[in-house]
């Protein structure tokens, strides 16, 4: 039960119910689709870049509570970050949900992303949490073809 409460933390439940930045971005400079063919989670992540800075992030799509909350939290923490900062957060987040936290500094930088720490206890759900991040990573890499978790 406590592992389950760690997974479904209040922050995650709130973001699932009322996701932030859940909209199509008309003036996006880049966007890409990401999906998990095993469970049908499917999102589009939009980004508006201003030089090296992520000026805006939004997403649309559907999936489980973990993936939707992950996309929502991701979109709110990345606004105003540089590409290098975003890359660092991607690595930190990946370490967090796979149970190999990068460094203490990294854990501090995570801020409210730390709510996803409980995911590491549920190996089957790691892909749910990381799908939005992998999708964003592909956007920032300039990829245009949809990405999948498999």
């Amino acid at each position: 039960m406590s592992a389950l409460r760690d997974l479904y933390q209040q922050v995650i439940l709130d973001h699932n119910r009322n996701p932030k930045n859940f909209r199509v971005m008309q003036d996006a400079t880049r966007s890409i689709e990401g999906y998990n063919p095993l469970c049908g989670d499917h999102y589009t992540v939009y980004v508006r870049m201003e030089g090296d800075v992520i000026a805006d992030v939004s997403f649309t799509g559907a999936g489980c509570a973990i993936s939707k909350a992950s996309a929502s939290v991701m979109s709110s923490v990345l606004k105003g970050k540089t590409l290098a900062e975003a890359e660092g957060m991607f690595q930190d987040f990946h370490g967090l949900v796979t149970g190999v936290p990068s460094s203490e500094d990294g854990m501090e930088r995570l801020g409210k992303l730390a709510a996803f720490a409980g995911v590491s206890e549920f190996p089957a759900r790691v892909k749910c949490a990381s799908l939005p991040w992998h999708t964003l990573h592909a956007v920032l890499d300039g990829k245009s073809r949809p990405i999948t978790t498999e």
Partner: protein
Amino acid sequence: MHTTTVHSGKAGTSAMTGNADQAGRDLLERFEAVRGCRHHFPLLRRRVNGKPLVYFDNAATSQKPQVVIDATIRYYEEENSNIHRGVHYLSERATQAYEGVRVKVQHLLNAAHQREIIFVRGTTEGINLVAHSFGRTAVGAGDEVLISAMEHHSNIVPWQILCEEKGAKLCVIPINDRGEIELAEYEKLLTSRTKIVALAHVSNALGTINPVKTMVAMAHAHGIPVLLDGAQAVPHMKVDVRDLDCDFYVFSAHKMFGPTGVGVLYGVTKLLDQMPPYQSGGDMIKSVTFEKTIYNDLPYKFEAGTPNIGGGIGMGAAIDYINEIDLASLAEFEHELLVYATQGVAEIPGLRIIGTAREKAAVLSFVIDGIHPHDIGTILDDEGIAIRTGHHCAQPVMQRFGVPATARASFAFYNTKEEIDVFLAALHRVREVLG
């Protein structure tokens, strides 16, 4: 714990008494006997996440009774040897045991001949064999292969690949909102271009039991052969391939209380004889020179290489087990579980059952408004309940019903109403956890 074993031949006696009370008592007695079989399955005694395991993922794979586990161990401890090769004692013993399983399968399916029973890795390989071997020779440009809208990916993709290769067309029989085949549409799709019909006997995602005997007859009226995917049928009902009159029937041992990695393709001699080999190598040949190879007779023509001997022997033990228990009582009992669970989930707010066919196996696929099946699966797992969540390798079925995925509880005779109560209580908790 009960130690009763259900013996066959009891089903139907109650009807003859013409006495409702007596019939009711008979049914209770038979159900009691079915419940007694649970202890044959050692894994069901374990706990998961600190709770007694509730195993409701039987459509994915069934648990194994002790006799199957013992037979497999005994083979490796006492008889392990390669078959069809040696003159030595062990090889002869192993060959005898393995070939004995072929006879068991023949009787299980009521096939006319042993040679019509081909051992494969499972349902998927069985379908691939037919698609490659029969398909490549029978299907040409402009021809059609007919499947239904409720097929598992394993009964879609091999045909799709064949059609792409040959310039043929994959046609799909539509299903209604209950998840039943539209027979009138099916009739219209049977044409001179149709070279084979490939159908699920029972749908893994919806539980629908298809009217396959009627559908085989309809196809045969046009001279079209029919393959039936029996993966979900064989563990739950008596299958008689001659009564169904199908041309091919495939199933996996692991869904019928046997080991993984072994299964059966049944085919009528007339078609198998004409078909070229699927894989080639040892055991499928009579003689080999660098100029020419003469293929072996049926069934060995389709069995290249050393097979899964241990698995095959485990499958034989599973068939013995099924023969000892009364399949008719089991089917009735599973239906009772399905009805009980169906009534129970009706009280869960926002829950919708996907697949409400009038003829249905013990599969309960469902969605809950605003909650993704993955979250349902995780929360149930925390209570020790194993269900399947996702698209069940049947994405077109999900698309037909407009859902990305479903949660699926699938029952076997060793499940109980008490377990369904645990499952229902956990479903009530899902919304509580997700707030």
